């Protein structure tokens, strides 16, 4: 580690320690469930594993083993320790196995996710039919978060422990094997599995599995055969078990085999059969494809056929290299979330390779002008579902790529490379002819194991071609007179001819998107055109030519206007203007030169001169992936690039061979996290506070006149003071202030029970679990008054103080109401664990400018940012500096919320704990440099981060390693931040719900520093280069596997474990502002679902790459029809509910009234919810030309709805009835 990095971490850690000290002092004074900070600090993974598991000695042993072996091997090695008892304090054999299995899962998930504690319920020793013993591992749903490999290895570890302990293998009974097969299948149908094993596979695994896989029922559906088995508790599918068997064992068999081979004690020879048998895997995929799309295109683009060049794959029609269109991303299209481009369709996003500084790790770079032109549906952080290389990506603004090309109402076709301009012209846009470029980094292809798709011909590539052709590119780049990115037409033509290099991308048009015939027609049109000078006079081209190179104004080329020529120019992306008679192209010389014309518009070729190959190049793409046919008669020769190369005097490359389809996924998020209804204090008030759980209201509530107001009976903790023996529900004795301990009482015999070491308290006499709670009548009035008094606040300080109905935690320890009063005062609310949280969509950034973060260079220097990315001292606000791994950028909303939280924390320290204020912020600048926790759902470890600035985008920008440490990538995932001191003071495990998954999304441990080796390895696939080499671009045209070019590429993995592991994250593309484009997606600013859908259809009309009827069709098919059909079905089999007591009944009672209270009963599904969309759906179907099939389905549904809800006798067939 570099010294600078060490210094950085030390700064963070000392800051953390200071805060910790304050919090510890506070905790000792207050009434928290525990008198100490409950989030232990973990410096590394070993610490986290130990802390999450709560098994002492694991960390030390893990550190010992880590240097010597892989993590998987370490997990197996630890089994020995558990069995021998050197690690963990387990007496029983099942306990040892359990410890080993949990540790293995924790290790493999870097001690971050909740799977080891929540996903494995217990391990049991059971008896086989032959009297021998076997091990049963009882899984639960949250094992999902461990991932397939860890799931599979958990079984292996259990088996290894079993073997070492000399326990026999599990011998499955026949009915149990059948049950596994039926159950996995049922779970797959019900919930869905990533991999659906075939019945014979499941049976095969069940038969050979040396460990019994068992688990908690997770669904309501029940198996129909193999019910009520003796050794299986439930008839419902056991989700955890199904995951382990299917996504673990079945899917990861090859990985497990690697480890079984190294272990003498265990032998899973059957894995080989499974692996060989999984040749069926590809069959399954093929089946899927067949069923979901009859048009025969591949679902995934990684079909083998892709490797073949176009020349080979189609019979005799030569064609360019292309990846197959994939339409999976269009599935389940949602009303209100637009399609931006249909699969691989011309006019859609053009794939450009590179990584911008706010890019990588499952993101997609889009030009801000595009974001505005798609009616603001795209904003920074909006998730898109994409055709390739992954499934989804977070959108980031990158303005160093090309923007969209549009046709305006006046006929002008223009490329828009500026967000401001986009906003100016937006209302006049008639058609979006091209969405612009779409930046994807190489690492994305590595991560998704997707073959490289042909690259756009861009400046990055061209300059390397030019260099290879012999030009001194470095000198040109250094020359002040030459702009390599944006040369004049003359320069470009000169370079192309002088160096025999391909034409510059700026003047390379999209010849591959037009047919050879169209090119022929365009050439003919050139012959009929003339050149107009700027003043409108005719020019004499001969004279110009003779004048040599010195012409500065070539005038404009004026074509007689025909729709065909105009369309060809549009598809080529040639900017032009038009009126009724003419189409005018300025900067026309490269166009006509490319077409084989001289400046004087003469050509020496005819259509007949073209070779057969050129004339037939490119298969017809008139039928695209979604089966839409544009041309009645598809013909060969749809790609004119070969023809152009035959007529042009220089080489012309395919400008944008890969188009990437996508649609909107979920919108970006930047919102405070409130429970519903929001909760200020985790103290129980029963039903007394009404639906709002209003404490003030509860203090006045009385069930009837004879009751004293404000007295409510709730289930609450039972504790006793250590010193004076006072009984209380508080954590501290109200009399002497000493800690009070929970008292466990047996519910049957009412005797007190001492909990054992593991915290279980079982009554020795009754063998029932003793409970640490009691039903107690609380005097809310007094409690509320005392709390107000104790923090010196009045009721007017806040609107409403909201509490909870009851506590969900095991001990039901309430939170001091004082905290709630202060939260209400500062308008923040508590999550289930007592912390205040703010959610944001995750996005990566590796280099930032102080100015865009709304901070000064000085402020950043104070945080240790001494140099910019070029090594120059940081002095200006617009210098680019490399972001440190644990520094994060807050959205404006998050900053505001953190400020409120800081004020709450300050008041809490001062008014409740009696300490000094900690933060004392005046404005948000003061937040810079402060520590926060980052914390993702499904995990149990928080990561410490430091605020460096703010962004107007509704996202949380941070280093990709920070996100990876939380086990998130950036494809639209979101997670939360908490203010450090709030977490330290207010989090308690005692508040966590006592149910499955209760410990997820809770900071059971915090990581104080990020070790790049100990984070989600997806982040290691991010490339960190400043330029991609020419070999890479060339490889893309061969559709090579990304690993084939890894030698010439550099990904983050290469720096792991070196001095450079925290630095030198280079990027190929800069962007002016990481928050460019709209601040919020239109999806969030539009009101009703109907408005959103209208906007969605509106944009689909404008986009050339979108087939609007398909969008309408899909909305109807996937949104309206399921809704209508589902609600109609629900209506005819609905439950009914009592309006008075809320009791629901499967069927209307014969009495008509509520069986419980005699109250009024009513339907749960009404006519209104059944027919709410039918009119809209029919309108959309009509307006956007849905298929007759779809229209008829709607018609039949409409009639069905009418038939159910209309009285035939009252039907009015027309006005005639009244006449």
């Amino acid at each position, binding site marked *: 580690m570099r010294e600078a990095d060490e210094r950085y971490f030390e700064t963070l850690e000392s800051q953390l320690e200071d805060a910790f000290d304050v919090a510890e002092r506070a905790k000792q004074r207050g009434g928290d469930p525990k008198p100490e900070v409950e989030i232990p600090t973990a410096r590394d993974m070993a610490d986290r594993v130990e802390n999450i598991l709560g098994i002492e000695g694991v960390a030390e042993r893990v550190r010992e083993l880590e240097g010597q072996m892989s993590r998987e091997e370490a997990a197996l090695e630890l089994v020995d320790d558990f069995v021998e008892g050197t690690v963990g304090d387990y007496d029983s054999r099942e306990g040892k196995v359990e410890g080993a299995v949990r540790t293995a899962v924790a290790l493999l998930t870097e001690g971050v996710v909740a799977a080891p504690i929540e996903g494995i319920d217990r391990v049991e020793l059971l008896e086989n039919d032959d009297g021998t013993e076997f091990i049963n591992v009882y899984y639960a749903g949250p094992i999902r978060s461990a991932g397939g490999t860890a799931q599979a290895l958990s079984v292996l570890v259990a088996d290894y422990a079993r073997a070492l302990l000399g326990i026999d293998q599990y011998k499955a009974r026949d009915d149990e094997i059948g049950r596994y097969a039926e159950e996995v299948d049922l779970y797959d149908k019900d919930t869905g599995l990533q991999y659906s094993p075939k019945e014979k596979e499941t049976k095969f695994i069940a038969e050979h599995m040396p460990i019994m896989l068992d688990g908690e029922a997770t669904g309501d559906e029940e198996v129909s055969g193999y019910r009520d088995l003796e050794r299986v508790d439930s008839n419902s599918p056991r989700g955890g078990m199904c995951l382990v068997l299917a996504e673990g064992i079945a899917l990861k068999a090859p990985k497990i085999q690697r480890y079984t081979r190294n272990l003498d004690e265990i032998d899973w020879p059957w894995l080989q059969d499974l692996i060989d048998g999984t040749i069926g895997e590809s069959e399954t995929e093929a089946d899927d494809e067949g069923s979901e799309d009859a048009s025969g295109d591949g679902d995934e683009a990684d079909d083998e056929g892709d490797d073949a060049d176009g020349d080979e794959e189609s019979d005799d029609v030569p064609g360019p290299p292309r990846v197959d269109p994939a339409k999976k991303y269009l599935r389940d299209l949602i009303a209100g979330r637009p399609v931006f481009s249909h699969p691989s369709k011309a006019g859609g996003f053009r794939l450009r390779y590179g990584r911008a500084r706010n890019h990588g790790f499952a993101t997609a770079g889009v030009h801000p002008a595009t974001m505005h032109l798609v009616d603001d549906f795209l904003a920074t952080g909006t998730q898109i579902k994409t055709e390739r290389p992954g499934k989804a990506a977070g959108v980031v603004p990158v303005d160093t790529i090309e923007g969209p090309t549009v046709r305006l109402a006046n006929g002008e076709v223009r490329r828009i490379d500026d967000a401001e301009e986009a906003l100016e012209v937006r209302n006049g846009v008639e058609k979006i002819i091209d969405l612009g470029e779409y930046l994807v980094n190489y690492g994305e292809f590595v991560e998704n194991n997707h073959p490289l798709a042909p690259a756009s011909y861009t400046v990055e590539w061209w300059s390397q071609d030019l260099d290879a052709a012999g030009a001194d590119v470095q000198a040109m780049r250094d020359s002040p007179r030459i702009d390599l990115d944006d040369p004049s037409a003359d320069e470009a033509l000169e370079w192309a001819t002088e160096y025999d290099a391909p034409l510059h991308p700026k003047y390379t048009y999209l010849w591959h998107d037009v047919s050879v015939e169209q090119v022929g027609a365009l050439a003919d049109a050139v012959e009929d055109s003339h050149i107009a000078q700027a003043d409108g006079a005719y020019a004499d081209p001969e004279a110009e030519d003779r004048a040599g190179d010195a012409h500065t104004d070539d005038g404009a080329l004026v074509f007689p206007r025909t729709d065909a020529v105009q369309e060809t120019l549009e598809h080529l992306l040639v900017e032009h203007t038009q009126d009724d008679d003419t189409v005018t192209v300025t900067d026309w010389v490269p166009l006509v030169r490319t077409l084989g014309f001289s400046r004087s518009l003469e050509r020496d070729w005819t259509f007949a001169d073209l070779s057969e190959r050129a004339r037939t190049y490119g298969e017809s793409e008139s039928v695209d992936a979604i089966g839409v046919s544009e041309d009645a008669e598809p013909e060969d020769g749809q790609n004119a690039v070969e023809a152009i190369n035959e007529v042009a005097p220089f080489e012309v490359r395919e400008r944008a061979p890969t188009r990437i389809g996508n649609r909107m996924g979920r919108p970006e998020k930047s919102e405070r996290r409130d429970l519903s209804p929001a909760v200020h204090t985790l103290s129980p008030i029963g039903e007394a506070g009404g639906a709002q759980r209003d404490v003030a209201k509860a203090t006045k509530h009385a069930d009837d006149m004879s009751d004293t107001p404000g007295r409510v009976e709730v289930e609450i903790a039972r504790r006793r003071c250590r010193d004076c023996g006072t009984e209380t529900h508080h954590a501290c004795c109200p009399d002497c202030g000493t800690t009070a301990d929970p008292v466990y009482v047996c519910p049957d015999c009412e005797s007190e029970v001492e909990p054992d070491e593991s915290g279980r308290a079982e009554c020795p006499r009754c063998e029932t679990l003793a409970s640490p709670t009691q039903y107690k009548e609380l005097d809310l009035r007094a409690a509320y008054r005392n709390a107000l008094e104790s923090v010196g606040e009045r009721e007017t300080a806040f609107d409403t103080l909201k509490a909870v109905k009851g506590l969900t935690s095991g001990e039901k320890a309430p939170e001091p109401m004082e905290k709630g009063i202060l939260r209400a005062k500062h308008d923040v609310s508590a999550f289930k664990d007592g912390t205040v949280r703010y959610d944001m969509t995750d996005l990566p950034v590796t280099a930032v400018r102080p100015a865009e973060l709304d901070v000064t260079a000085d402020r950043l220097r104070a945080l240790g940012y001494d140099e910019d990315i070029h090594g120059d001292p940081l002095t200006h606000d617009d210098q680019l500096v490399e972001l440190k791994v644990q520094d994060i950028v807050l959205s404006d909303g998050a900053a505001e919320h953190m400020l409120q939280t800081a004020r709450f924390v300050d008041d809490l320290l001062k008014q409740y704990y009696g300490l000094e204020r900690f933060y004392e912020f005046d404005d948000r600048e003061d937040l810079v440099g402060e520590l926060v926790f980052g914390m993702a759902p499904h995990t149990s470890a928080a990561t410490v981060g430091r605020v460096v600035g703010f962004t107007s985008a509704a996202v949380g920008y941070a280093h990709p390693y920070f996100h990876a440490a939380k086990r998130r990538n950036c494809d639209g995932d979101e997670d939360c931040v908490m203010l450090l001191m709030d977490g330290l003071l207010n989090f308690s495990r005692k508040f966590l719900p006592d149910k499955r998954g209760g410990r997820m999304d809770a900071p059971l441990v915090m990581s104080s520093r990020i070790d790049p080796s100990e984070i989600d390895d997806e982040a290691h696939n991010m490339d960190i280069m400043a330029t991609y080499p020419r070999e890479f671009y060339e490889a893309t045209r061969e559709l090579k596997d990304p690993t084939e070019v890894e030698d010439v590429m550099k990904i983050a993995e290469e720096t792991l474990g070196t001095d450079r592991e925290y630095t030198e994250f280079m990027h190929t593309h800069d962007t002016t502002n990481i928050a460019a484009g709209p601040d919020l997606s239109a999806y969030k600013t539009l009101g009703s679902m109907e408005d959103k859908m209208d906007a969605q259809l509106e944009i689909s009309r404008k986009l050339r790459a979108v087939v609007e009827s398909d969008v309408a069709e899909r909305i109807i098919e996937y949104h309206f029809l399921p809704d209508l059909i589902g609600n109609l079905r629900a209506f005819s089999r609905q439950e009914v509910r009592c309006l008075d007591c809320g009791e629901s009944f499967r069927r209307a009672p014969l009495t008509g009234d509520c069986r419980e209270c005699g109250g009024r009963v009513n339907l749960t599904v009404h006519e209104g919810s*059944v027919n709410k969309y039918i009119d809209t759906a029919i309108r959309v179907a009509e307006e956007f030309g849905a298929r007759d099939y779809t229209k008829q389905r709607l018609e*039949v549904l409409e009639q069905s709805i009418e038939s159910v809800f209309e009285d035939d006798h009252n039907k009015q067939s027309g006005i005639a009835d009244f006449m």
Partner: protein
Amino acid sequence: MPLETPARIVSELASRGYNAEREAVTRIADAPDPAATLDRALETVPDDALKLTTDHVDSVIEATETARSDPKAESGSTPASQADAAASADHDPSVSTGTTPGSSAVEGGTVPHETEGSRDVDTSLRAIEVANDMTGQSTGTGEYSDFVTVFRDRYEKLASKLRGRVNHRPTDAIESMAGGSEAALIGMVSDIRSTASGHWLVELEDTNGTFPCLVMKDRPIADLVQQLLMDEVIAVEGTLADDAGILFVDSLHFPDVPRTHKPSTADRHVQAALISDVHVGSQEFMEDAWRRFTDWLHTPEAEHVEYLLIAGDMVEGVGVYPEQDKELDIIDIYDQYEAFSEYLKEVPGDMEIRMIPGNHDAVRLAEPQPGFDEELRDIMTAHDAQVHSNPALITVEGVTVLMYHGVSLDEVIAELPDEEANYDEPHKAMYQLLKKRHVAPQYGGHTRLAPEDRDYLVMEEVPDVFHTGHVHKIGWGEYHNVLALNSGCWQAQTDFQKSVNIDPDAGFAPILDLDTLDMTVRKFT
């Protein structure tokens, strides 16, 4: 079935002017149904032949056996002889499902081939009445009160069938009875649970409230609990517990079909074809089989078939399941009905056609389903085919046929033990419905209900024939003298059926003698 002696075969042959090889006669005598085999052999013998050869008889027997390979469906003119254990116990010969051995032989043998194609029908002898048709009578508007009304109606109608058998006390009256006393109750099943000790707790509901009834697991009637469906109406008798909080059930009664039920028959020899699930528009619609069926209807053999009853799913429909359009031969729903209408035209013009909709047809899915609207009726005017609601009670020359499409059969088969109801013997599931006197008792699950002013799904009257389809399996039998028939379909195995291993019985036409209620299943594949 008595064996035909070779001597009789030879004399029969001689009377028709044929000679025969000795071995050929033996073969015929050994065939499972010598009379039919003989008929078939003679029908197919070459015109110029005078002597029946062994080879020829072999080929006939082989063809018949292929057709017979389906375990339930007897092929060709072979009389149906499905002997159901339960039904045959108290067999009434007059409504036997099996025909006398010679009957079809006589039928086939007496009609000269030359008269084929001509039908000489006196339509004035026909009589057809329809009851329980709710087409155009749907008055429900989807209010809560509609649901209450329909269930009360069900309770009242079915309770009236049980009142004579037990001394019903309303639930609120039972609540106030002394512990330990005897009590009886007629109620709608509102809940069935098994207790921790394996007994059954059945909650029964009447118009006053609910009452828990306990059926001990070791009592013989515990098996009946397995047959219970939610929302059917039953009667129980038993003893109240000491605290009068629960009734210990001693006996349990279903509304049921009386064992004494005597079906009515037609006054003349006339037949009806009872088919279902034509599925026109599906790629799997068996056009050839249909054509053979309609061709056959023109033959003299079919001259008495004057009625055609279709139990739903005339067409394949649209949007019945996801991505259905990819398996449709005719994608347009109206075109499907046009095509169906065309196929119907192949049926002799004098036949009386009645049908009800099924779940693939273009009407609401919720039951009862009204008949088609005017637009669809207009399409099918050609043959003047009438469409009634599902269910509907159609009385043909005195024989009442309860037509119901059969969606509830899926649920009955899923809910009840395999031996009571399964897909290979769909008629057994129908027995259950007859026993419950309701075509779709269970609410809230698979079957959908549209509440009307009365429960059209109750079998108020005992039908003589109960005709369903939907499950695409053929099966028939007698239950308390009621002929329960599930006709097969005219759609070959679909990809979906293949994937779940359902092998449909396609291309059969059950032909019912309305004067004897004898049934013959003809195969047209």
